[in-house]
């Protein structure tokens, strides 16, 4: 992940578990997750609905609300401090300062009764000692930075007067106003049209290069992962089943779930004469995860051991895969379309 070794580590999440107490029992949404991001690094947590990817992001920010709770054995190391053990006040200083977050639907995060400029200026003033007027000037600068045209005019607009793409830009401007070391982006382009998504993805890439911040991207879209980040962690049923460099994982996935997921997506130029890979069945119930490997009931390769024992992340350099097939090293690489 990092070119300079562990010294450049920014965030290290250890045994993160986030459970929800429900009337039907304990819902283990995130159930023992480990990952790390280097300073200036990029990691995507990818998964389908119910995999626990969004709860993972919220947990890092300690934004999980009741009935959810982060298990006491969890650690969220950020620059040497364990966010899992920080008091609310200390936490407030980290949040929105060193770590900023953007969401899928900016409308829910922007206040409809204040202008966009006022809100960005407010965010600026939280981190810098600036007067109201100077903060507003800084807001215009931030809006220019994220490519909002005629920012001087737009600064007086209310959120509903902006298009979806422009609102997402405004939210990025707000998030970046504190010059964060880590930006958590939870499905930042899912609600956008594909040509606007392309704008926002390019914008985030260029801003990252310019500002040197790390990005934790949460997404369901493997295409977005390939275009945005260097490292990926694939989540299934509350666990990370495979992680490592995107290039390696996409060309030679070691976990059968990753493999099936990649094969189930039609690529440009693929035609219906060749059926797509289908993963049989559905995601298991988070109130009652299956024993052993949680993917075993849907897996094409499962054998006795999969149901009996839960596979840990096994090292198959340069990636790690939680599959018993990887016990003796790498599996045979795939030969089909993704490698073409």
């Amino acid at each position, binding site marked *: 992940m990092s070119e300079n070794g562990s010294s450049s580590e920014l965030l290290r999440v250890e045994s993160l578990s986030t459970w929800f107490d429900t009337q039907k029992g304990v819902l283990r949404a995130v159930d023992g997750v480990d990952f790390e991001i280097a300073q200036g690094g990029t990691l995507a947590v990818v998964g*389908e*609905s119910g995999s626990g990817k969004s709860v993972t992001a919220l947990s890092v920010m300690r934004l999980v609300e009741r009935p959810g709770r982060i298990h006491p054995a969890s650690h969220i190391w950020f620059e040497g401090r364990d966010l899992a053990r920080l008091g609310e006040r200390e936490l407030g200083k980290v949040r929105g300062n060193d770590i900023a977050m953007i969401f899928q639907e900016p409308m829910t995060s922007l206040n409809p009764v204040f202008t966009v400029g006022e809100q960005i200026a407010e965010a600026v003033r939280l981190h810098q000692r600036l007067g109201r007027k100077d903060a507003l000037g800084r807001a215009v600068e931030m809006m*220019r*930075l994220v*490519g909002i*045209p005629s920012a001087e005019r737009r600064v007086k607009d209310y959120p509903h007067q902006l*298009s*979806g793409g*422009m609102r997402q830009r405004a939210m990025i401007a707000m998030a970046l106003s504190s010059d964060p070391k880590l930006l958590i982006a939870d499905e930042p382009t899912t609600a956008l*049209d*594909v*040509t*606007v*998504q*392309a*704008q926002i*993805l*390019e*914008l985030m*890439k*260029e*801003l990252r290069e*310019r500002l040197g911040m790390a990005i934790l991207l949460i997404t*369901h*879209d*493997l*295409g*977005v*992962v*390939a*275009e*945005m980040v260097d490292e990926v962690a694939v989540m299934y049923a509350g666990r990370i089943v495979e992680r490592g460099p*995107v*290039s*390696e994982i*996409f*060309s030679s996935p070691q976990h059968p779930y990753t493999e*099936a*997921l*990649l094969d*189930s*997506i*039609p*690529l*440009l*130029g*693929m*035609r*219906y*004469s*060749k059926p*797509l*890979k*289908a*993963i049989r069945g*559905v*995601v298991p119930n988070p109130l009652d995860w299956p024993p052993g490997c949680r993917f075993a009931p849907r897996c094409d390769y499962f054998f006795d051991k999969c149901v009996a024992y839960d596979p840990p992340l096994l090292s198959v350099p340069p990636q790690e895969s939680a599959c018993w097939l990887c016990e003796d090293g790498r599996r045979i690489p795939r030969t089909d*379309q*993704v490698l*073409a």
Partner: protein
Amino acid sequence: MTLDLSTASAPDSRADPADVLVKARGLKKHFPVRKGIFKRQVATLQAVDGVDLDIFRGETLGLVGESGCGKSTLGRTLLRILEPTEGEIEFDGIDVNRLGARGLKAQRKHMQIVFQDSVGSLDPRMKVKDLVGEGLAIHGIERKRRNHLVLETLERVGLSAESAERYPHMFSGGQRQRIGLARALVLRPKFIVADEPVSALDVSIQSQVLNLLVELKREFNLTYLFVAHDLAVVGYISDRIAVMYLGKIVELATSDDLFARPLHPYTQALLSANPEPIPGRKHQRIVLRGDVPSPIDPPSGCRFRTRCPIAQPICAEVEPLLEDHGRSHGAACHFAGTKIPETPSVLA
């Protein structure tokens, strides 16, 4: 862009260009925009604005575009779920526009629609067998025959006989889409409009439903209009693709030809923007500026010109028509075929 030509050339389409099942000419659907307490009409939203289209019997025609381009409205207008403002629609040789209520009802048996979540929008207190059998009941099929057809169709879409007695909320998203398909299929239609049928589904479930759609088309000799925003999904399932932008078709070609030589700048941008799970795709690409303009007040001339990287003065003055550029590949652009340069930077 990676094109796998070995599989790209092999679709087993039975479509015959001489055999047109659905024909639209000069089709328009405008919506009045009303304001104030007297609901005075202040503007017109031109959702579909002059579309000529032939859908061949046995083919899947993909209709792709971004939100607000009018693709869903076009699908619904073709079925007269929405009344056209102007233009002609012919279905299997019958002038659909002239049909009265009774004639239309008889015709509906042959043309069905599946939505993104067809079942979610239906009465949650109805059992699956009643939801699926509703169309049969409307067409006066007696109960015994109805139940038989319902069970047969449920089985065909991969649902058990027990599911007939259950309620829609007891099913997952993928299963609900199967119920929606059964509901359309039970009438044994000739034509199905599939409006974003897999957009709400996780990718592993999406592939199940896409495979099923392909199987059903073969088995029941169906013709599809497949409406979606995802170019790779549309390209996978379609024999031909129509690209829509602000109420107009801007490009129309076979899927293979569209991907191999996209002629319209908008199609090129769509292809370039499509994120693909292929490592090393982190290159520069064509990034369009701005957003889609409002269909209430579309730009003059070519509607794409405000975002087009190669727009010229003529584009504001003369509206380009959908013209054939060989191999029945149509494009509506004065500079069709010009290769669009990649965008160096999105930052000012």
